């Protein structure tokens, strides 16, 4: 796999901005977001509020770090993990037939239903996340080799 540097940079920027944008509504409407998490019927009741409090900020931090290019390994690892997790949860609920709101970009009750299209979108983002993670790993290897730590 070749990692054209401009492409990687633009992809990182795009993904980062997307996360920053997506996290905003959830940060300013924690109760609505908690309700959405509740509707997914995946977490035990006692953990719902904690998730509603932390997840949007994790998303914002990830977005910021992606844009800045800091802590690249940790950021892209979290990105891939969260997107994979969300994909799993979404698939599970789509199969269960539970009608949930995605809660991806908005916490409003009217919009943003989670359907198979949402899953496709998530998979595309996951591919981008994994791609970036691989690019970062390759870069790290090269650095370690260059300074003689790796053979």
């Amino acid at each position: 796999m070749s990692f054209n540097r401009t492409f990687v940079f633009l992809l990182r920027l795009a993904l980062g901005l997307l996360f920053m944008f997506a996290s905003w509504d959830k940060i300013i409407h924690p109760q609505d977001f908690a309700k959405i998490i509740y509707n997914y019927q995946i977490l035990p009741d006692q953990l719902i509020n904690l998730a509603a409090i932390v997840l949007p900020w994790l998303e914002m931090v990830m977005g910021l770090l992606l844009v800045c290019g800091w802590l690249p390994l940790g950021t892209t690892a979290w990105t891939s993990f969260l997107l994979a997790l969300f994909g799993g949860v979404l698939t599970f609920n789509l199969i269960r037939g539970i009608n949930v709101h995605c809660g991806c970009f908005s916490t409003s009750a009217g919009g943003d239903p989670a359907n198979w299209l949402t899953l496709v979108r998530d998979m595309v983002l996951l591919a981008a996340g994994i791609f970036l993670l691989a690019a970062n790993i390759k870069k790290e290897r090269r650095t370690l080799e260059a300074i003689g730590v790796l053979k």
Partner: protein
Amino acid sequence: MIGKKIILKIIWQGGLIILVSICLGLSVNLFRSNGLPLVGNWSAQARVEQVLGSPKTIPLSEAQKVHASGKAAFLDARPQAFYEFGHIKGAKSLPPELYAAKSSSTLAGLSRDALIITYCDGETCDLSLELAASLQKSGYSQVRVLVNGWTVWEAGGLPVETGPEH
């Protein structure tokens, strides 16, 4: 291919990221006006109270009584297909998403202080709550939610019927 060093780096960077996120989340939550309690009350009762403003659930025994005396209007908040499959006897179908379109015809003849009971199915289903909220907004003051209505009604062997509204 992915050496131990890299894995360790992923772990400490990842750990730092989640730590910062937790700190940010918790501190912002602490100081904001619309912060969440760390452990929320997600029981049906609490959720109804949160939306409708006071304990507005109705226990099955009371719902049964008013149903028998004909003193309440029952509204089924589930999708039409579920309604036709089986509903509380005498209940009308009014899914909350169709409120704007259907409410005037469905609620015709009901006074603003008539006792209205909404229900759906499942402990966590909020359709009945959404419908109740819309009704309250429209000025109906005696709205109650029968939590997990369809299941408990059927389980209690209480009067049901099938088919579309007549």
